[in-house]
């Protein structure tokens, strides 16, 4: 259990509250019967995780999380829920028949994670809150620091991500269009 404290005092309690609520919302996503309820709990979970990001001085990532997840992806999900009328897809049982086996296998899945947690061998680096705001030796904002890193050190991955988004967009259009033609 080596390593420095990431948060202390009130911020630590805030983390506990946000993380607990986010986990509760996540459980609600998985067990809710109606897809609309699931989508709304998922939205709550995303917003709470964004709050945790703010506690960790990742303000830009928190803003992206709110805009892309809570704004974009959730609207997409709700659109599809409306498109495939949920009343027609309501099944008698919402879980597959092997769900009890999945619950039994779950502790076995946890074991390697627990092993890694108890043998924590991270280097002891002193906390440096300015690391997320430094741009060329000067204190700027978190967004500027992320932008400098993204557009200089990670320019190629950034371009690959843009190609990926283009491919995903074309794929989504083709898939949606073909099923519409079948419909007519």
């Amino acid at each position, binding site marked *: 259990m080596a390593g420095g404290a990431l*948060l202390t005092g009130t911020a630590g309690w805030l983390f506990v509250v946000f993380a607990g609520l986010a986990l509760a919302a996540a459980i609600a996503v998985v067990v809710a019967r109606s897809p609309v309820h699931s989508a709304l709990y998922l939205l709550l979970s995303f917003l709470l995780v964004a709050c945790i990001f703010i506690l960790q001085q990742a303000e830009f990532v928190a803003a992206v999380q709110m805009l892309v997840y809570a704004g974009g992806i959730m609207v997409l999900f709700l659109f599809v829920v409306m498109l495939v009328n949920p009343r027609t897809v309501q099944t008698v049982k919402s879980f597959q028949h092997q769900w009890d086996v999945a619950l039994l296998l779950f502790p076995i899945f946890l074991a390697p994670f627990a092993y890694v947690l108890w043998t924590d061998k991270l280097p002891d680096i002193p906390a440096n809150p300015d690391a997320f705001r430094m741009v060329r030796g000067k204190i700027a904002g978190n967004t500027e620091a992320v932008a400098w890193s993204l557009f200089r050190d990670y320019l190629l991955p950034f371009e690959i991500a843009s190609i990926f988004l283009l491919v995903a967009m074309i794929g989504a259009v083709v898939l949606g269009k073909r099923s519409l033609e079948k419909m007519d």
Partner: protein
Amino acid sequence: MTVTINHYLIASLLLFSIGFFGVLARRNFLIILMSIELMLNAVNLNLIAFSRRLSDLTGQVFSVFVITIAAGEAAIGLALTISLFRQRKTLNVEEADTMRG
């Protein structure tokens, strides 16, 4: 309350496991997609926590990439959902078994 990296790892592990259980156990294709989003969110939580622990900005940049991938995955997954619903009039993954051997 002092929060260390381990608290973050436990929270993220639980979030990932809930998502994983959702993928394995639910029948509704839409909710399986939502569970995948939960798992990606847990990965982001880990990246941010390690970024803070090691005082390195790279984790934040990578979580932006993960969010990008999640957006693309959601778009394709929802297009597949509509395609599946138009062909089968259902979202139950157990009924989409044409390829069953």
